């Protein structure tokens, strides 16, 4: 086998030779992110409850930390995990070309067609290595929401030291709302993502074993 052929296979993840659908770094960062996100969201809900933005509280049973101080300890511990893991994912996603290969381009006409196909049960998932337009849009969207939630979180955490960043979000109070809505977007994605993983179990298997 020539070097050229090997290279060709590396670029074609679903090659008949059985290359991994998801390389190890994708699977690792995916599951580390899942743990970090659950800790951040659970503790974030407890923190929200100390000074709610809207006329509702999160039920204490689904929050993390027990009380405000405990939730803050979890939140500011897991933030390191979330950010370091997220940076590794972004750097590798860009450096390996995975984002470019998998997530773009996203054409509005394809998004519409694939959305229609999904709701009429005509969307197939035969080749897990190729994302349909709706998947591309959602995966790219949740990456952006992840970036926004980290930046707005920094703006809330350090509104004096990072006041220029806080100003970008429209000030301290506005940044709290941005942080909340980014959380809501991620939770919305999470619900859909888990439903789809259960409907297409081989996609869950692929994210664990790589195949």
């Amino acid at each position, binding site marked *: 086998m020539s070097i050229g052929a090997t290279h060709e296979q590396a670029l074609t993840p679903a090659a008949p030779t059985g290359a991994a659908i998801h390389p190890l770094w994708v699977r690792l960062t995916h599951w580390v992110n899942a743990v970090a996100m659950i800790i951040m969201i659970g503790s974030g809900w407890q923190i929200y409850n100390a000074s709610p933005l809207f006329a509702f509280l999160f039920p204490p049973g689904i*929050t993390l*930390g027990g009380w405000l101080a405990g939730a803050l*300890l979890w939140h500011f511990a897991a933030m390191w995990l979330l950010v370091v893991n997220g940076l590794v994912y972004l750097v590798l996603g860009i450096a390996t070309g995975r984002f470019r290969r998998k997530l773009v381009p996203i054409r509005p006409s394809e998004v519409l067609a694939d959305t229609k196909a999904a709701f009429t049960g005509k969307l197939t998932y035969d080749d897990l290595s190729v994302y349909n337009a709706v998947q591309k849009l959602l995966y790219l969207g949740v990456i952006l929401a992840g970036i926004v939630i980290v930046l707005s979180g920094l703006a809330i955490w350090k509104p004096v030291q990072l006041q220029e960043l806080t100003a970008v979000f429209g000030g301290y109070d506005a940044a709290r709302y941005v942080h909340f809505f980014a959380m809501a977007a991620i939770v919305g994605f999470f619900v859909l993502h888990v439903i789809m993983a259960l409907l297409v179990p081989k996609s869950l298997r692929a994210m664990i074993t790589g195949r």
Partner: protein
Amino acid sequence: MPRIRKNPTGVDPQLLVKDAAKLMPAPTRRLFLRGGASLGALAFLTGCDIVDSASAEHVLMKISYFNDRAQAWLFNPNKLAPTYPDSAVRRPFPFNAYYPEEDAPEVDKEDYKLEVGGMVDNKKSWTLDELYALPQETQITRLICVEGWSAIGKWTGTPLREFLRRVGADTRAKYVWFRCAEGYSTSIDMPTALHPQTQMTFKFDGEILPRKYGFPMKVRMPTKLGFKNPKHVMEMAVTDKYLGGYWEDQGYNWFSGI
């Protein structure tokens, strides 16, 4: 000794419930790891019950100490908190404490003497008249509570660094510690104590600091969360010894810079 009419430390816990209920589950202040169902989700994901052990709390506190150092590193002693026009001041300014407003300590202005101790040249106590005679400035800055809400206020007083200079404080010391009339305490890092906006506050919104906002003196620092801004300050000490504080000892992050 200054006379204090009410002393909320050791009062009936019922009295503390009103404002503190959302802050802490009644019997388990430090057992903050006893969460709810989401802890179950964590245990499920990790395959072990990590959160039922004291070691988890230990690890979280270690990370909190690491975060103290990270925040000290991030703290720029020359970076000023944003200031606002007079029209932005919240009136009335929200009262917030771990006791209800009627239990705010009442300090007698005639008897009051600020005690100064630790690594300072001059340990004489200061009467209110002596304190009022110090040069004063006014700041309109945003107070941010650890709970998340914020409010813009107008505080007038003497920069703490000016006072520390006058008492001959050893500014190579690590901490400045404050003790309050009702038993509250907190401590801050020296760079924050020397920050130009860290202020010994005698007035709020142009009026002598009312009892509910910390009469006769609070220490205002717009570079830290609200609970790091002690009210009814009776004593300060310059020290190399870590002395924590009321909330810090219960699990709140010590540095709590913003």
